[in-house]
C-alpha cells in the first residue's frame, strides 16, 4: 500500500485543542475527496481519541498529543493519536461501552464511538508510558457515490 501524503501535528493537551485537532485532521482527510458523512466520521473518531488524551492520559498534568495522519492509494486513511501519559492498565476493560473512570459527565463511550465511526481501531498502551490509538478509515469518496 503506497503512502501518497502525510501530516504530523503536535499539540498541548488542552481542551481548546479538541476542536482544532479534529478540524485539522478533517482538512487533511478532505484531500482524498471524501463524502461529508466520511469526513464527519473522521472528525468524531479523532475528537474522542484526543479527548481521551486530555481527560485520561494527562488529567490535570501538562503533556503533548502527537497526531500522525497518512493517506494511502485507494483512499485508506490512517490516523495515529499518541500520548505519553499514564497509560491504560486494562485496554479491554477501557474499550467496554459505558466504562469510565472520569465521573458523571463522561459517558464511557469514547472507544465505542471510535469503533463505530472507523473501519478499524487499534489501541496500544503501557502503564506509565502512554497510549497510541490508530484509527483506519477507508474513504470511498464522492467518486463511489
Amino acid at each position, binding site marked *: 500500500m503506497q503512502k501518497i501524503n502525510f501530516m504530523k501535528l503536535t499539540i498541548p493537551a488542552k*481542551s*481548546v485543542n*479538541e*476542536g482544532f485537532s*479534529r478540524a485539522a485532521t478533517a482538512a487533511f482527510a478532505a484531500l482524498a475527496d471524501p463524502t461529508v*458523512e466520511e469526513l*464527519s466520521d473522521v*472528525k*468524531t473518531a479523532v*475528537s*474522542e481519541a484526543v*479527548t481521551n488524551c*486530555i*481527560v485520561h492520559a494527562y488529567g490535570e498534568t501538562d503533556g503533548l498529543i502527537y497526531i500522525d495522519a497518512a493517506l494511502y492509494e485507494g483512499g485508506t486513511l490512517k490516523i495515529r493519536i499518541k500520548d505519553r501519559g499514564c497509560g491504560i492498565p486494562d485496554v479491554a476493560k477501557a474499550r467496554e*461501552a*459505558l466504562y469510565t473512570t472520569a465521573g*458523571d*459527565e*463522561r*459517558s464511557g*463511550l*469514547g472507544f*465505542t*464511538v471510535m469503533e*463505530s465511526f472507523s473501519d478499524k481501531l487499534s489501541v496500544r498502551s503501557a502503564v506509565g508510558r502512554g497510549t497510541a490509538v490508530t484509527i483506519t478509515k477507508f474513504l470511498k469518496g464522492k467518486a463511489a457515490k
Partner: protein
Amino acid sequence: MDITNENGILTVYLTGEIDHHSARAMRERADTELVKRRPKTLILDFSGVSFMDSSGVGLVMGRYKTAAALGCGVQVRGLRPRDRRIMELSGLKKLVAFQ
C-alpha cells in the same frame, strides 16, 4: 445558547459544536437555570448543533441526574441522525424521551 422557561417547561437550545471543551459552559448554564427555575420538564434542543461527540451523551446524562433529583423529566429533540446514533449507543432511551 438560548434558554426559555414557559409553563413549567425549560427549553435549552444548544448550538455549535459539543465536545468535552464546550460542554462545560453548557452544563453549568443549564444546571444554574434548572436549579433556579425548578421546571416540570427540561427539553434539550439539539437542532442548532453542528457537531457532537460522546460529550453530548455526557451532557444529557448529567442533566438527567440533576433534573431527576429535582423531580423534573427530560426530553431530547432535534438530533441529527448521526448524533442520535451516538445517543443510542448509551442506552439513554430508557431514561430520556427522544423526539
